[in-house]
């Protein structure tokens, strides 16, 4: 079974600064997908960014980018120019490439605080 580990329960960043959230995972599969979801106080899960394991190029979405290290099974999220609205819980998630209606396996989350 796949596992996802987020070792940082909480992180803090000053507005306009850059922060990196860590995620590691364990799998025996070679093809899979990785995601970062944001959960603001409203509790709704919002997709931030995704990465295909077979792609070496790191995904970017505006101020959000990932550092995907397949051999190390590491998938960190970098948030540049942090904004107050970035304050939320961030969950790393894994999804298998095979199987129908593949489930997401989530990590325990990192609570990000953004300070002035």
């Amino acid at each position, binding site marked *: 079974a796949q596992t996802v580990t987020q070792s940082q329960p909480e992180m803090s960043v000053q507005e306009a600064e850059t922060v990196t959230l860590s995620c590691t995972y364990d799998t025996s599969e070679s093809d899979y997908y990785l995601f970062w979801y944001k959960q603001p106080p409203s509790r*709704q*899960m919002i997709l931030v960014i*995704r990465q295909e394991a077979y792609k070496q190029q790191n995904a970017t979405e505006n101020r959000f980018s990932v550092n995907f290290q397949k051999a190390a099974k590491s998938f960190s999220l970098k948030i540049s120019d942090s904004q107050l609205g970035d304050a939320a819980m961030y969950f790393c998630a894994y999804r298998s490439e095979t199987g*129908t*209606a*593949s*489930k*997401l396996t989530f990590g325990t989350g990192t609570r990000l605080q953004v300070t002035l």
Partner: protein
Amino acid sequence: EPEVTQTPSHQVTQMGQEVILRCVPISNHLYFYWYRQILGQKVEFLVSFYNNEISEKSEIFDDQFSVERPDGSNFTLKIRSTKLEDSAMYFCASSPGQGFVYEQYFGPGTRLTVT
């Protein structure tokens, strides 16, 4: 923009009672999911549903749970005899397909409190 909706937003029930949590997935989506999040913990997969049958279920999804798509729009999660440990946030999600490009869209969740 289409979105997944869930009702009610908060449900309080007594232990042993049956509850039905309702979800309206995005209209052209074919794959449906339920996840739950116990307060302060990670989001956990419960069940996936496709073509009117369960595709996969987790160990959490035991005989007290069931899912149904009673009509063309609703997707429900029933808990037959609630326990205190069923208190959690329940999220419904839907996806138009199963490939990588098909994002799972989450609803706002139903907070279930079992007393």
